[in-house]
């Protein structure tokens, strides 16, 4: 253990308690099993975090394969040699499944994985507050994914991941696969809620002595805000899906106008969760890249408190804008104006974050590691996604491009350029800590460029397609859109190559490389001063031999 030496205290840093604090028996003492049983029975936050990440990797493969099927259909909308590749029914299921796997299977679990692994260490705790609940929250994802996979064979949701009523009701989607899909999302929701409770309690109560709120690293803040979003939002999603389910099974008619229900109610409730969900899938990434940028620029984050306030502000206002998904659905005129206005407001704290990152990098000494490349790529791509978001807050423009490929382009720049880039950045950044092995930097650069270029080739032309008049979720399109769609499918192949290379390198590293990583895997942690780099790689089951004590941190000493 190389917890900082006492003389460091004078310039701020992290030191041991003066008196050795005897700690409880390691929480993971019970898990004495070896091999597969060790994974099945563990309540160690690190092992659970790793399992979350493998789960996310599996979902990425499933969601990525589905994206390939979608792209092949759109590359050859008239089939190959006169034979159609798939039926429209199957195509519609593919788009719904692609989104379900990517959102509920990849992005949310990946952030939960990094959070689980890193958060307790970052705050100097020995585990999450509720280790068994933590394990439960993970394991309930497995039946969720199985249901999602199996729903394919029973005719899953052909109504997209949004599953709007009435299209998703029994009359128009009679297949049992839709019910399975609803259950799958329910289980994922339970996992989300339990995970959120765990993070909130852990971060609120288990910080090491001296780790005041405003000494917490940004990823802790990001996870805390996200957890609150999940806790408030997910029950609403569960509620609306339950109503859909009872409409399907018990014929309750919540969304059936003939029975006094209203299809528009579904959209309001659905987006009340699903807009904040956008931030659930973004905010942890904001936190993670902040760590990466500090490490590889050699500078502390610029405007730490501004970043914290911006994140919290995004979280709160995120609950007040859901109507921007429904500008063409019919609502009171003043309500359209209101939702457009609030959506514009969100652009301000988002801008604050981008400017703060740039100010952090300005004057730095940048090491272009793969993690850093992904973080820098994130800034560029997320800026593009943010700007198209401002365009969508502009109501008349939104009405014109709503439900077109412009929107598809926008949310892929946010979800892929934002969330996935930060996940890959964090993977390259924390993989050495988790496994004790470095991923190849040389291959990493190739992976980055394949994914970065492929991503832009795929999603940039979609902006134009949408403005020009191509609706989304269509199985075939007008001939004038063919050449660009071919090009887009080519862009997908670049990303696919990047993904395969990444997985190959991941497995090779885990199998063939030895553990060589020092505590401070990337060096220079005295700038950022976060705890994960002060313990071994990988950390011992109880994280720290002694409870660390945090003294005024560099954030404060530099600013005041």
């Amino acid at each position, binding site marked *: 253990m190389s917890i900082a030496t006492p003389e460091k205290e004078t310039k701020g840093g992290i030191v041991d308690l003066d008196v050795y604090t005897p700690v409880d028996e390691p929480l993971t003492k019970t898990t004495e099993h070896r091999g597969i049983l060790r994974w099945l029975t563990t309540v160690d936050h690190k092992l659970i975090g790793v399992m979350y990440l493998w789960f996310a990797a599996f979902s990425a493969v499933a969601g990525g394969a589905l994206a390939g099927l979608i792209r092949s259909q759109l590359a050859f909308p008239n089939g190959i040699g006169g034979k159609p590749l798939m039926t429209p029914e199957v195509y519609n299921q593919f788009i719904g499944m692609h989104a379900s796997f990517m959102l509920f299977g990849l992005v949310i679990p990946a952030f939960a994985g990094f959070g689980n692994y890193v958060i307790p260490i970052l705050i100097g705790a020995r585990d999450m507050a509720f280790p068994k609940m933590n394990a439960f929250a993970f394991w309930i994802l497995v039946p969720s994914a199985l249901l999602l996979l199996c729903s394919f064979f029973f005719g899953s949701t052909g109504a997209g991941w949004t599953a709007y009523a009435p299209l998703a009701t029994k009359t128009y989607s009679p297949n049992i696969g839709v019910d399975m899909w609803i259950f799958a999302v329910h289980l994922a929701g339970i996992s989300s809620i339990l995970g959120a409770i765990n993070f909130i309690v852990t971060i609120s109560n288990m910080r090491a002595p001296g780790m005041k709120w405003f000494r917490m690293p940004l990823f802790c803040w990001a996870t805390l805000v996200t957890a609150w979003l999940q806790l408030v939002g997910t029950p609403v999603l569960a509620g609306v899906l339950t109503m859909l389910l009872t409409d399907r099974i018990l014929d309750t008619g919540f969304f059936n106008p003939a029975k006094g229900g209203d299809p528009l109610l579904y959209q309001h409730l659905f987006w009340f969760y699903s807009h904040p969900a956008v931030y659930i899938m973004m905010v942890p990434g904001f936190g993670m890249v902040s760590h990466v940028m500090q490490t590889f620029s050699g500078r502390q984050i610029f405007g730490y408190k*501004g970043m914290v306030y911006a994140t919290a502000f995004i979280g709160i206002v995120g609950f007040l804008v859901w109507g921007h998904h429904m500008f063409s659905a019919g609502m009171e005129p003043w309500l359209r104006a209101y939702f457009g206005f609030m959506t514009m407001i969100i652009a301000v704290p988002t801008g604050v974050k981008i400017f703060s990152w740039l100010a952090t990098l300005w004057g*730095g000494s*940048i090491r272009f590691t793969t993690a850093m490349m992904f973080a820098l790529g994130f800034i560029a791509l997320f*800026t593009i996604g943010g700007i198209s978001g*401002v365009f969508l807050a502009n109501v008349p423009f939104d009405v014109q491009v709503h439900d077109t490929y412009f929107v598809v382009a926008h949310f892929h720049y946010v979800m892929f350029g934002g969330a996935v880039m930060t996940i890959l950045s964090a993977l390259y950044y924390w993989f050495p800590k988790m496994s004790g092995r470095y991923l190849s930097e040389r291959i990493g650069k190739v992976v980055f460029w394949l994914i970065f270029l492929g991503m832009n080739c795929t999603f940039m032309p979609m902006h134009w397609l949408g403005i020009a008049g191509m609706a989304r979720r269509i199985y075939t399109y007008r001939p004038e859109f063919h050449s660009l769609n071919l090009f887009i499918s080519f862009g997908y192949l670049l990303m696919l190559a990047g993904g395969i290379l990444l997985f190959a390198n991941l497995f090779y590293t885990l199998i063939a490389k030895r553990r060589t990583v020092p505590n401070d895997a990337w060096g220079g942690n005295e700038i950022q001063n976060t705890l994960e780099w002060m313990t071994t790689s990988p950390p011992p089951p109880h994280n720290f031999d002694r409870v660390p004590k945090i003294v005024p941190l560099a954030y404060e000493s530099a600013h005041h």
Partner: protein
Amino acid sequence: MAKKDIKILVGLWVLALVLSALTAWVYEISYNPAVDTHGPDSIVHPITQWISLPASTVAERVRSETTWTIFIIFPFLYGPILTLLYIMTRFSKNRQPTPAPVRENLKLEVAWTTIPALVLIAMAVPAYDVLRYIEAKPTHPDQVVNVTGAQFYWQYELPRYGVVTTDNGGTPTINKETGRAVEEDSWLHLPLHKSVLLNGQSFQVNHAWWVPAFGVKFDVIPGRINTAWFDTKKKGYFKGQCAELCGALHAYMLINVVVEEEKDFYQWVLRKGGTIPAEEEAKVVSLLGADYREKYGPKEAEKPSAPAAAAEPAAAPKAAEAK
């Protein structure tokens, strides 16, 4: 921050402004009102045509407002990206072996919070003006069309003339001799230079009626009547498509609308077996002659009987119109 740094930053953001102006200009000149030949051959024009030829005031206003938005918002696209590229070249480990310590700069933080907020207001003001125009639906529209979305076709009723027509979507077949589409009569026809109020409804699932050239997109949702309006400013064929996932054949729910001279429009009404209301009689006589019914109406033998399906959808929107 050093003086030099400030100069560089200002330079980068001025460059971003110039690039934004350039982008907005390129977008603007792709609007070419000189190409106003929206004649019968416009049927072969791609749907992308709407960008150079918006065909209603709403679409024109959306378009010019987009140019303004590009001009005023794109600096925040080019600015960060140019700054990032500059940072990557100047502050690499090779060129800058030791990082400079972070210093607080409250002025900077206040600036990058307030300036974007002000710019957003500058974007919002004209946007809300257009929105107000969109919401200002005419109380006495020249034409009322009841639009019904169904799996998987569009049905239109012109209650004033008792005309009901069904557009089955799909790609039109062009008659080589006339250069016109075989299905043309089943599409929605509208007279030129008139305001049109659309009442949208559905009895099954959600759809969205979208014709980019009119700048109109509105969902049709069971249990409610949504309305939208536009004015017809250009003659020709206009293409659109269903913009809300509605089932397997959603992609095939294409829309075709014909905007034509009033006399051609009345001929279509008569061909469809419509009746001319008394208050329009004089106008139709002046346009088509006193014997318009014999000349243009359907021959006795082929008089179309109103489709049975039309009876139900027709009832609800009438109430809406009365309101």
